[in-house]
């Protein structure tokens, strides 16, 4: 018991990734070879990271394999304000953080048909943080939002025949949430807005359980078809909201505010409905030296309809509507084997945003994405190094509708511009 707890601590201190690099706050960058094929990996499924993409992929892998890697995510996001608020000419920048969700996998074949594996990866995460939070014009909505998660997934796969394998994994997802913002107060003497408190909400770690299923079929020579499903999960968090007073400079007003504001620490409860997702992919090696795969992924983002924060000791509840819609993304992955040792890869992904236009805001400014990537794999004896770089272009996201009406639900309108560079690498060893 004690040692398992220590293991968790060790894993988490290593890296708790927090950034959203699939639409919404999904993350699909779980292995460098798969990233090199733009995540179109449900049917190719031929390295241990398939525990994430399609558990059935393990059924066709021989011997024992270890794979370790990470994806370095560098997001660049900015915002150009519009009227009526925060106003034309205002620009805001996202903080230039570096995120590195890990992907660590071990798989071992037992007998001819059975393979066991265990993997650690990040399926969901979010990290939106704005520069200069004390001056940031959206600070009364959110200055920083984090959803961090790391999943451990024991997986078993069974090869029913040379043409068909199935797999199942038990996903243990550890996650936590942090939300930071400022509390406004309208000074009745001047009708100007004052910052009167910082509100920092931090949850404890919550464990939620789910599962992943997969089927991988190789009906004809050079063709494979994969299907995978990852179940939805609800994570229930307990945590603390800390209200820190910001003096206004007026002693009488400060005295009044101190009686009205819930300063100090307060217990909070919140929960997140992580969506379920299903992927379907077809891959072919019919063209000599080439692997081509096309995938479609569907995610039930409509389950993320509200974010409810309950202040248990204050007996109050804050409901932040999200109103996400289910979303689809399409992936094309290409690989060309240049020699025994070297493979070059490329791909494209179109990732549809689940977020309604009026919801694009400081907490999470999402948008439809186009990803282009290049990568390579190099095998030397028992070692394989995979490297991939994904250039992720977000379409400009405006909060004005076709008639030019400002529709952001928090009254914060403008255009979000985001670009991200994702550098993934994995090192694998075949025992």
């Amino acid at each position, binding site marked *: 018991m004690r040692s398992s707890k220590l293991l968790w601590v060790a894993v988490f201190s290593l890296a708790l990734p927090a950034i959203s690099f699939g639409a919404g706050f999904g993350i699909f960058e779980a292995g460098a070879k798969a990233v090199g094929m733009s995540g179109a990996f449900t049917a190719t499924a031929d390295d241990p990271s398939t525990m994430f993409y399609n558990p059935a992929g393990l059924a066709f892998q021989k011997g024992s394999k270890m794979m370790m890697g990470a994806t370095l995510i560098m997001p660049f996001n900015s915002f150009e304000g519009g009227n*009526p*608020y925060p106003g034309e*000419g205002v620009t805001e920048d996202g903080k*230039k953080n570096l995120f590195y969700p890990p992907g660590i996998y071990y798989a071992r074949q037992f007998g001819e048909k059975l393979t066991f594996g265990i993997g650690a990866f990040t399926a969901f995460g979010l990290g939106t943080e704005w520069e200069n939070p004390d001056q940031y014009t959206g*600070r009364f909505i959110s200055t920083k939002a984090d959803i961090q998660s790391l999943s451990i997934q024991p997986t078993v796969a069974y090869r029913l025949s040379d043409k068909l394998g199935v797999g199942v994994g038990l996903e243990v997802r550890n996650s936590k949430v942090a939300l930071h*913002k400022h509390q406004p107060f309208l000074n009745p003497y001047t009708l100007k807005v004052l910052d009167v408190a910082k509100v920092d909400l931090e949850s404890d770690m919550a464990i939620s359980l789910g599962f992943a299923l997969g089927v991988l079929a190789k009906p004809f020579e050079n063709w494979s078809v994969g299907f995978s499903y990852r179940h939805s999960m609800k994570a229930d968090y307990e945590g603390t909201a800390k209200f820190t007073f910001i003096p206004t400079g007026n002693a009488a007003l400060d005295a009044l505010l101190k009686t009205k504001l819930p300063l100090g620490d307060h217990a909070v409860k919140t929960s997140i409905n992580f969506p379920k997702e299903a992927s379907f992919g077809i891959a072919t090696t019919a063209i000599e030296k080439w692997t081509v795969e096309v995938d479609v992924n569907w995610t039930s983002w409509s389950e993320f309809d509200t974010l409810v924060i309950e202040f248990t000791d204050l007996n109050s509840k804050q409901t932040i509507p999200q109103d996400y819609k289910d979303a689809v993304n399409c992936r094309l992955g290409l690989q060309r084997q240049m020699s025994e040792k070297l493979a070059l890869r490329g791909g494209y992904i179109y990732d549809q945003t689940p977020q309604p236009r009026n919801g694009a805001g400081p907490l999470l400014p999402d948008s439809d994405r186009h990803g282009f990537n290049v990568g390579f794999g190099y095998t030397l004896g028992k070692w394989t190094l995979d490297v991939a770089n994904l250039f992720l272009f977000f379409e400009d996201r405006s909060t004005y509708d076709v008639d*030019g009406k400002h529709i952001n639900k*928090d*009254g914060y309108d403008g255009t979000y*511009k985001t670009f991200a560079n994702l550098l993934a690498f994995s090192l694998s060893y075949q025992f």
Partner: protein
Amino acid sequence: MKRTLFALALLAVSASLVAAQPSGKVDFSRYVSIGDSLTAGYLSGGLVQTTQVRDYPALIASRGGLGSGFQQPLISEPGIPALLYLKSLVPLVIERKPGMGVPINLNLPRPYNNLGIPGAISLDILQTVTDPDNPFFDIILRGQGTVVQQTSVLNPTFMTVWVGNNDILGAVISGRAIDGVTMTPIPVFNQVMTQLFAVLSPWKSRMIVANIPDVSTIPYATAISIYVTNPVTGQPVLINGQKVPLIGPQGPMVEGSYVLISASSYLAQGYGIPVQLGGNGQPLPDETVLTPDEVVVIRAHVNAFNATIASLAATYKVPLVDVNAYLKEIAAKGYIVGGVTLTTAFVTGGVFSLDGVHPSDIGYAVVANKWIEKINEHFGETIPYVNLAPYLGMRPTQTGWGEWTWVDDMVHNLKQVFLKPEARQYLDRTR
């Protein structure tokens, strides 16, 4: 030769295209606003230049590019009458500034663009030149004819019309709903507005009108609870767990009735409060209370007036700004700007000024944006909304991309190449 001719023709065409594109689709050069105190920019119990320059017609004019061509009957500090100011929040003390302002733009050798006259009812717009009880007619009309006559002299290129608020407001302010005395009888309003639209019909294609808000939603009526309230906590006083109603002229106040702000001085003397709770047990005077019957009558008038306005607007194909619906929405949910919720609460809400009847500076800007939204929608204009940030004193940050400018440029260029259809077309053409 032929080619040169063609090029010249192209040049001519493009030149004419440029010439055919003036600043916008609406010509604001002779913009005239017709209305009452709401159009004049009256707030906190008076009219003064510092707020007149930010009344909704001035904001529309400046967005439309008119600038100093939009002339108003400006009044010097501290206003006519001198404006109210908040002296103390707890206890609530609102006082008038000392002194009196004077008109400072009386010598304008033409009618004012803003012909909003505080206190004017619909009939006044058609026929009143002077009123011994209301100095604003002389200040604004200067004996040079009625509002419609002066409008005709200006021959407007664009016109906003917001008339009828005072045809019902008197019933609320006086606490008495008497047809022909405190409010305009419905058939009379119908007749007057029909005539007004007929008189203004030469400009109907450049005209936009607004309807009348339900005046029983203004703080003047809603600020004071109908129950005895603890002045320190602001919470209702409970006896045996029950709230205690104030005493009105018809006995204990019932749900659906309103205690007007004019009752506050009586409440301070103990009127309306039962003896056992420290009052004098005497009822509040009739003119400080709206009974449910009076509220029903007032609302029926508002609805009938608005039906008249809607029907005339439809007949003359004039766009209608539904201020009534908008104010109801704001009264119910608040107006959210940058995560700050402004409400219709008295003094502390932000939307209304200290007289409890007229909007605040911010309130007028919010109203102006509603007009602008409709102007853009109906006339196909792209007038920018009023920026609310300066009103709220929320400092914008002006950081920009800084050292990451090159990334922005790179992203922009790559997007042009990969994503934009026009870029692809351009590439096709140059090939």
